[in-house]
């Protein structure tokens, strides 16, 4: 059979499309479908069980009048910004150090990476210990003779979120370092030679030449870090459980607590809808840049 007509578009690359069915289903049913379900129910009076009793924007009005929600947002912003900046900074710095053709590279790399193998629950627990003023770092320093030394981030609500950040960075920077290291290894040796011949100082080479060349790594890294930030939950629960008071609450915990502790699904869904919205606001421009721009030079 010779096909003279343009075949139906749907059947071109059939195997590829069949193979993509799990992805399409996941994207549409789980991510889009469940988000839609969530958004819908955020306008209802759902309590312990989902119902369709419509209440309009009530849940949102209540959400934004909750002190706890506002604190959660603020904490997420602080945690997010610092986590992003320091993950990249520390990750890149460590990678750059490891990339200096040093000895024991494997050892150092393993040391920096191993926390990533541990769950957030474990991370939170361990750092809760290390930061405990009664027997942790504060105690040691005091025992060394600095009687007035105070370092109790988990018990000081002004700085508790930084205590969480400390643990979060410990757990996550190893992976970022690996990504960065991989990126650095992908840079052509000649670039370094050229920069040296031109007499460009090391830091300038990194800043102006190497980092711009690592754009794809940074994109992958950003997706990984950002997804982790938005979802930060386990760490806070294990380390501070939102305390002291509500000083280290985060949005994901607000969602969880309202859904399951307060048995107010509607409120939890309203909060998660706000989170989805924020993600969309950040992600849509990115997707546009990634795919809108790429089509031109296929």
């Amino acid at each position: 059979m010779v096909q003279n007509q343009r075949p139906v578009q749907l059947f071109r690359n059939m195997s590829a499309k069949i193979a993509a069915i799990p992805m399409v289903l996941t994207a549409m049913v789980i991510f889009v479908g469940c988000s839609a379900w969530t958004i819908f129910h955020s306008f209802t009076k759902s309590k312990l069980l989902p119902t369709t009793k419509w209440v309009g924007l009530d849940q949102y009005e209540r959400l934004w009048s909750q002190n706890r929600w506002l604190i959660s947002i603020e904490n997420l912003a602080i945690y997010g910004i610092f986590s992003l900046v320091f993950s990249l900074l520390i990750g890149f710095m460590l990678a750059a150090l490891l990339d200096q053709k040093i000895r024991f590279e494997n050892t150092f790399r393993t040391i920096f990476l191993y926390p990533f193998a541990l769950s957030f629950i474990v991370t939170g627990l361990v750092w809760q210990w290390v930061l405990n003023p009664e027997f942790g770092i504060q105690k040691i320093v005091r025992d060394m003779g600095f009687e007035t030394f105070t370092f109790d981030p988990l018990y000081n609500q002004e700085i508790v979120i930084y205590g969480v950040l400390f643990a979060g960075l410990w757990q996550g920077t190893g992976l970022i370092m690996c990504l960065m290291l991989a990126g650095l290894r992908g840079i052509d040796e000649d670039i370094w030679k050229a920069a040296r011949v031109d007499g460009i100082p090391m830091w300038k080479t990194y800043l102006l030449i190497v980092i711009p060349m690592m754009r794809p790594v940074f994109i992958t890294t950003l997706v990984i870090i950002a997804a982790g930030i938005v979802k930060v939950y386990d760490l806070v629960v294990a380390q501070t459980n939102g305390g002291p008071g509500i000083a280290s609450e985060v949005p994901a915990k607000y969602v969880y607590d309202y859904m399951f502790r307060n048995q107010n699904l509607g409120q939890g869904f309203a909060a998660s809808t706000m989170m989805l919205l924020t993600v969309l606001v950040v992600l849509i421009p990115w997707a546009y840049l990634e795919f809108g721009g790429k089509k031109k030079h296929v």
Partner: protein
Amino acid sequence: MKLIKTLLASTAALAFSTSAFATDLEVTHWWTSGGEAAAVAEFAKAFNEGGDKWVDGAIAGSGGVARPIIISRIIGGDPMGATQLNHGRQAEELVEAGLMLDLTDIAEKEGWKDVVNPVRLLNACTLDGKVYCVPVNIHSPQWIWLSHAAYEKAGVPVPANWSEYVASAPKLREAGVVPLAMGQQSWQTQLAFDTLLVAVGGTELFTNILSNKDAAAAGSAEATKVFDAFATARELAQGANVQDWNQATNMVITGKAGGQIMGDWAQGEFQVANQVAGKDYTCLPGLGVNDIIATGGDAFYFPKTDDPEITAAQKRMASSMIRKDVQVAFNLKKGSLPIRGDVDLSAANDCMKKGLKILAAGNVLPDGVNVLSADTAGQIQDLMSEFFNNTNITVADAQSRYVDIIKNAD
């Protein structure tokens, strides 16, 4: 070959002989500590005696962790045989949705109404005249536990009530003792507030606010006094850097703290540390101000299934939990009071007996958890926790937000 056949035959016969009455029931609960687990084991033992099998599904971390599991399993159509849930408002919706087994027939047959004391525990299990859960114990949160060692160190006598306790605080501070031990978890601060509410504010205020949701009462001058007392407690707890309630109790045991406001389950900790009530520590129900306790407690629910065998087994389990001997065995291990008035608890310790006496006199209050929805209770927890940990929030602020929550309570 022959051997295998015989073996098969005999095991089949064995299986048959027990299966006439044997059903596996999975039970979800969050009692995982040593004492709790020992208490649960009593239930399991009683249930297994009948030839059934108790399949344990313990999940630590209190209701917050367990609840999504319980609800998922129920809406997922593959529920557990029985589950722990705080009775009252929290399970109401599941009952209304027809997802819980109606236990009315065995409750009537066994006359639960007559044996459960106080009877409101059974009422909390009842919706539209039908019984849906088995209350298993009574816990009262309104206690303060005082350390004799700490007071010795400070050189002041052990106080007998809240105001004496507050007055003694500066001396404790001087002696390097934290007056009030308090864990970071929000339920602990809320518990302290409710305790002050009944001790300082009185029974009427307590019921007006928590049972009748009277916003005016929440904003009244009496309530302000409670908040003032709570602010005092906030001062007294400065420097108590612990997370879990039992770490706080440990501070009392070791004399690092003067006292702790905590439920009657705290005495388990004192027992473990070989402390003797009246000699090493003192317990004051209702903070020594108001000899009255609220009676909360735990209850078991039985999700509905289509399988008549399971339903029968669920009923067997329900009736075993409320049995006299099981109640005694369970509650002695759990450190709580039995829900039956007709059992002998001579083995109980000093503090427990204080509780029993108050109970017998009928000086009981409904517990906040029973009359507030989980949503309202959660909001109050957040507020109390925030207030307790942030000295920038004034009493007036906190009270006005409290009034808001009560006003919108459902």
